[in-house]
């Protein structure tokens, strides 16, 4: 029996090694900056600007590297998110393939103005590996989303879908593994296969007879920088930008860069505020479409809060104007029953309203009140405060839903975030002077934090992980001065543990996953299969900032502070590298509209107002505090 077990284990080891090697891409050296510039210059038909820098070597010599599989070099002209021309060039060396592509590009019939305005993107295919086309779940995970393209060779003629094509057409992360659920992961394999079969130009019978080979490929990708349409000369002297997952490099981490990014986020929200005071809820960048379905009032309140924050930081009246217009919409959003002594917020026809809308409205109002005090606002805030306090349960937690017509609380339904948001709202009020920071309010905050940091975690199973408590730790920090000294230390210790837990899920340089996918650095997650989302980085950075401030106040050891600071800095670098800027907007229909926004992820390319709020709030606070 022992021999059988050893033989089985050996078989498994052999299978692992063989399959892993076959699925791996061969290693390759990316192009150097000099090579990239030379490729762009040749394709644009310009004299080499880099010649002096390389001591008179010719472009052909620069590009004289062998090209495995003949490339190809794929050159695409992108204009407002549309590929207006694409050519492929093949050759045994990079120089020959680029020459081939340049000739093909010159033959393309494209309007001269558009040709000059468009940005030239180049993908030099450097490695291929076979993929499994069945089962569908395995096909979905057969490419690294946003980094790999998919190819089909039919009778030795190759058809390619670049990573850009998969991103732009929302195919890179569109496979729904569980029917009926919104969750998607990996390649929409059937759609990709259909498209490549169609590209092959063969009918069904001919395709079945043909010899076929499916593969993924990795390219070295780079693009001309964005520049005003009339500035080809500026473009010619600016180095090509490397592209990873549709992104170009962001600015380096500095207080100035964070502040500029925070302002760009404020501009995004102000630009997407509609005349009626609502925001463009989701903005889909590939085709410049706005979606308002599922409009979330808590997220509206969060975006309003951010506009008030950025106004307080900059004093720019545009932000105050936008914040007050969004605030006015919020003050009008209520059904009958919410307009009494206690103010609640919801759709005018709603039977049920939620705690989160009122709590985050209170947060936004408290920020505006600090920026621009107003008596009518204070009255509204007092009514909101009374509502939030009335929703608190005896154990310190909160009811999350309320029926205004019957004035009854839903004692059972629990929603994500709302209790933490309510605690944060109460904490923010403690900074507004004695008319808000009453003993009753401070006691309610203390009671809420005792529940959130201790009582809710008492069941044994909950003692092994943490829930979404980022608002909780922001509340501890915001209410620190008002909280009873004998109890606040235990709340702060909870936050130390919470942030350390988050830190264990953050990717750092030197991690094997980051070695394979460097743009994961600073993001949070547990596997390389799902490209990181920016919003969790934003919200986790917000709470980590609050905890860092608590740790400094409490005089914690330098090593603890350094670990928390590293967590913050890595998150901020990630955010700076993922904010939409002109250079990274080549796949977007309207770069002006998208500028300053944050995508759901690199492979789910839409901006929602809360993505911007969380990321920019973290960056703004970091710019001011660090």
């Amino acid at each position: 029996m022992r021999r059988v077990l050893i033989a089985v284990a050996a078989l498994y080891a052999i299978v692992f090694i063989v399959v892993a090697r076959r699925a791996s891409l061969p290693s390759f050296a990316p192009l150097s900056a000099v090579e990239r510039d030379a490729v762009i210059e040749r394709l644009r038909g310009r004299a080499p600007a880099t010649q002096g820098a390389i001591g008179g070597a010719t472009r052909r010599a620069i590009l004289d590297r062998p090209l495995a599989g003949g490339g190809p070099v794929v050159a695409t002209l992108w204009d407002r998110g549309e590929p207006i021309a694409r050519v492929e060039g093949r050759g045994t060396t990079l120089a020959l393939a680029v020459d081939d592509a340049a000739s093909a590009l010159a033959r393309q019939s494209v309007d001269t103005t558009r040709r000059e305005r468009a940005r030239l993107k180049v993908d030099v295919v450097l490695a291929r590996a076979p993929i499994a086309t069945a089962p569908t779940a395995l096909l979905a995970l057969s490419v690294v989303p946003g980094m790999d393209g998919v190819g089909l060779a039919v009778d030795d003629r190759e058809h390619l879908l670049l990573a850009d094509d998969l991103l732009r057409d929302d195919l890179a992360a569109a496979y729904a593994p569980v029917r009926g659920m919104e969750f998607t992961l990996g390649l929409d394999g059937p759609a990709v296969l259909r498209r490549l079969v169609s590209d092959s130009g063969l009918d069904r019978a001919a395709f079945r007879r043909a010899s076929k080979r499916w593969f993924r490929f990795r390219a070295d990708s780079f693009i001309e920088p964005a520049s005003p349409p009339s500035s080809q000369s500026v473009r010619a002297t600016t180095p090509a930008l490397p592209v990873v997952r549709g992104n170009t490099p962001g600015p380096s981490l500095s207080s100035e860069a964070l502040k500029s990014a925070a302002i760009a986020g404020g501009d995004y929200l102000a630009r997407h505020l509609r005349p009626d005071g609502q925001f463009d809820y989701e903005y889909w960048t590939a085709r410049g479409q706005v979606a308002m379905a599922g409009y979330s009032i808590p997220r509206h309140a969060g975006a309003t809060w951010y506009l008030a924050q950025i106004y307080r930081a900059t004093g720019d009246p545009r932000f105050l104007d936008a914040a007050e217009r969004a605030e006015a919409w919020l003050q009008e959003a209520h059904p009958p029953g919410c307009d009494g002594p206690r103010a609640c917020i919801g759709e005018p026809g709603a039977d049920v309203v939620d705690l989160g809308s009122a709590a985050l409205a209170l947060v936004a109002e408290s920020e505006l009140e600090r920026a621009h005090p107003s008596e009518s606002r204070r009255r509204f805030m007092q009514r909101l405060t009374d509502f939030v306090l009335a929703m608190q349960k005896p154990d310190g937690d909160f009811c999350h839903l309320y029926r205004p017509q019957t004035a009854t609380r839903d004692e059972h339904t629990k929603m994500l975030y709302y209790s933490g948001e309510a605690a944060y709202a109460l904490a923010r009020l403690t900074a507004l002077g004695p008319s808000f920071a009453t003993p009753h309010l401070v006691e309610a905050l203390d009671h809420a934090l005792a529940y959130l940091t201790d009582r809710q975690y008492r069941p044994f199973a909950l003692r092994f992980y943490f829930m979404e408590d980022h608002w909780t730790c922001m509340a501890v920090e915001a209410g620190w001065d008002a909280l009873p000294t004998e109890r606040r230390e235990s709340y702060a210790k909870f936050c130390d543990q919470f942030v350390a837990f988050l830190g264990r899920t953050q990717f750092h340089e030197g991690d094997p996953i980051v070695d394979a996918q460097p743009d994961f650095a600073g993001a949070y997650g547990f596997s390389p299969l799902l490209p990181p989302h920016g919003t969790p980085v934003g919200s986790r950075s917000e709470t980590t900032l609050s905890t860092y401030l608590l740790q400094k106040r409490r005089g914690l050891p330098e090593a603890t502070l350094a670990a928390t600071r590293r967590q913050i800095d890595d998150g901020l670098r990630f955010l700076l590298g993922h904010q939409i800027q002109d250079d990274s907007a080549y796949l977007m229909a309207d770069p002006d509209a998208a500028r300053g926004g944050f995508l759901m992820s690199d492979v789910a390319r839409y901006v929602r107002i809360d993505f911007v709020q969380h990321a920019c709030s973290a960056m703004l606070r970091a710019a001011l505090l660090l």
Partner: protein
Amino acid sequence: VSRSRTFAILDLAFAALHGWIGFAVAPSRAVAFQVALAIVIALELAAGVGLLVGARWARSVGIAMSVVLLAFAGVVLLLLVASAAYLRGVYGALGQGMAVLSLVAAALAVQLFALVPFFQLRFLLARSAAPAANAK
């Protein structure tokens, strides 16, 4: 309780568990899989009942059932290994989270399909040709 009786009860319990999982909780759309599952469950039921009543054929059926389930577990583990290797090839290092998930999946497969058949096969093979039901 005799070991035969213990294995008989475990066979019947696992027949019910496999039937519940395979036909009620997560039924497959593949007919071949459903047929194979039905055969496995039938073998488990037969072995369980046979060992319980001390039938002469119980030992043979029990051995057959154990071999089939061990082979099934072996194939499941092989597919898990191959999938992990494929993902390792595509993505590079899979990280701690994926490693833990893979281990959990493998452990679950071993517990569900391999553990009882492994000990039952050892027990049945170690016995003399005497009827299974008399074993203590």
